[in-house]
């Protein structure tokens, strides 16, 4: 049973009606069954139609859906023999960014990504996917390790942004993000990044300056959250929908702008309605991108990455 979003209310109502019919005394009767299947068809069509034309603000809500797959689900789904590696060797192990060695198919890779957590305890442990400097410094360490041993880097981006806190500032949040972006750009191994949920600002780009940037169909990627943009430019967070629209945060828009290289389709109704299918689709797409880059020399990979970001504009 999925948690319905506000804009899915008509679908939720149809589903409630179906459940109600099924629980009536006459359940199993021909009349009821034909009514149920009619309603099911109507509900499926409504879901399909709704998701075919989600507004940027609706996509933002889908991208943040609590049941949407997270880093650990993707790793469980398409990475085998995962060996998590911890710590920045300077201050702490930040659980908002997780990383480690693993195999995608028969490719040995370094996987890094934000983890938001999926219940109260894990959300707190992962700080809702909002990394602190030690998280970015762990990412840097793992990228440099991958580079030295010729392992391609795969990053999964899913964060509302880097954590805004006193200690994070004290320890150099800005510097950590800048260095992490720099580390991505310096790699002599292939790097494939996928925006799987929210790509929030500097906290996202720090692990997304990749050769190939993928994005899920209903993920969002932006320079500031729609709420943040609205509160600054419209002077009210209530205008988040307008801000999301104006900033062009969707995968389709970002592909047009040349920021995203490949959009990965999601199951009807979003990744959270069929996580297994979504995870498999992403794993396959990342694998294909890695294979395209596999034979390239370090200098070529580095130069291609640089040229790509120099050319965006």
């Amino acid at each position, binding site marked *: 049973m999925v948690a319905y979003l506000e804009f899915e209310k008509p679908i939720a109502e149809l589903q409630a009606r179906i459940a109600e019919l099924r629980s009536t005394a006459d359940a199993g009767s021909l009349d009821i069954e034909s009514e149920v299947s009619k309603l099911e068809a109507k509900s499926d069509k409504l879901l399909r139609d709704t998701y075919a034309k989600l507004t940027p603000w609706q996509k933002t809500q889908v991208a943040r859906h609590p049941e949407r797959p997270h880093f650990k689900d993707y790793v469980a789904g398409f990475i085998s023999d995962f060996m998590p590696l911890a710590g920045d060797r300077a201050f702490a192990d930040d659980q908002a960014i997780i990383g480690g060695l693993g195999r995608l198919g028969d490719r040995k890779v370094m996987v890094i990504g934000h983890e938001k957590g999926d219940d109260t305890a894990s959300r707190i442990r992962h700080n809702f996917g909002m990394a602190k400097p030690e998280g970015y410094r762990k990412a840097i360490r793992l990228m440099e390790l991958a580079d030295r041993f010729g392992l391609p880097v795969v990053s999964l981006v899913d964060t509302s942004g880097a954590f805004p806190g006193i200690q994070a500032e004290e320890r150099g949040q800005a510097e950590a993000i800048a260095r992490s*972006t720099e580390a991505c750009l310096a790699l002599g191994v292939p790097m494939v990044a996928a925006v799987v949920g929210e790509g929030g600002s500097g906290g996202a780009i720090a692990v997304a300056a990749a050769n190939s940037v993928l994005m899920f169909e209903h993920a969002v990627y932006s320079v500031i959250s729609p709420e943040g943009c609205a509160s600054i430019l419209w002077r009210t967070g209530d205008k988040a929908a307008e801000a999301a629209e104006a900033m062009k945060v969707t995968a389709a828009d970002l592909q047009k702008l040349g920021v995203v290289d490949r959009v990965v389709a999601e199951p009807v109704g979003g990744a959270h309605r069929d996580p297994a299918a979504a995870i498999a689709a992403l794993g396959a797409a990342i694998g294909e991108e890695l294979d395209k880059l596999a034979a390239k020399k370090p200098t070529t990979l580095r130069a291609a990455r640089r040229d790509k970001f120099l050319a965006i*504009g």
Partner: protein
Amino acid sequence: MSWLDSVRKKIPFIAKRESPDNLWHKCPSCQQMIFAKEYEENLSVCPKCGHHGRIGPDARFDQLFDGGVYTLLPAPQVREDPLKFRDSKRYTDRMKEARAKTGEQDALINARGTIEGFKAVVGVQDFAFMGGSMGLAVGAAFVAGVQAAIADQCPYVIFTAAGGARMQEGILSLMQMPKTTVAIAQLREAGLPYIVVMTDPTTGGVTASYAMLGDIQIAEPGALIGFAGQRVIEQTIREKLPEGFQRAEYLLEHGMLDMVVKRHDLRAELARLIDYLCPGKKAA
């Protein structure tokens, strides 16, 4: 500097000085009234309390380059309003206003000249131009500044001042973070120093990219420097922020800067650094 440059540069100042509103400057820190001419002659530093006021590219270049002589680099051409953005106002209208107010094309201006005889390309971000925000034009100007430095075989010195990325250019402004980072890598490979001078305020995506990647990190006294805005932090953690939080001295104490340098000493300190890092590059 060409004759045209020098005239162009002087006109706005003459106009300003004639207006009686501008005869006096009220220090935002100590609230004292200072004779505007005295304030300007003191490099826009309050003679009473030492508060460093915000200054734009013209004043900065004048103060920094030998004899106030320099050549402006042309502003790179970029796509205007790539997202056709509008909030309560059109982005194109906000741009028009900012251009009229500052007389500049966008928020980052480069110039080449000498500092105590050492060649340098200097970029100055203008907070008066839409909060110094980083969009396509700022990114392109940064890259152009670095390229000029490589061509001249001299350091690139950037004076940062920005509220962050330019929201009206959406994701394209975020992409200026990796873009400027690539330029810095190229400067480094050319064996040339990249010197950052952070001025008040430097926050957001600018801090989290080129402002924090200097070979040498300098800040002016009292400058606000950070990643997250203070209001955002307060709302997130629901705590009062410590005294002096995110100020230059605080960053120095936390290891994020090499030095805090008073505006009056900047020229000499930059020249000393360039002499160490980029010797033999003294202009004829």
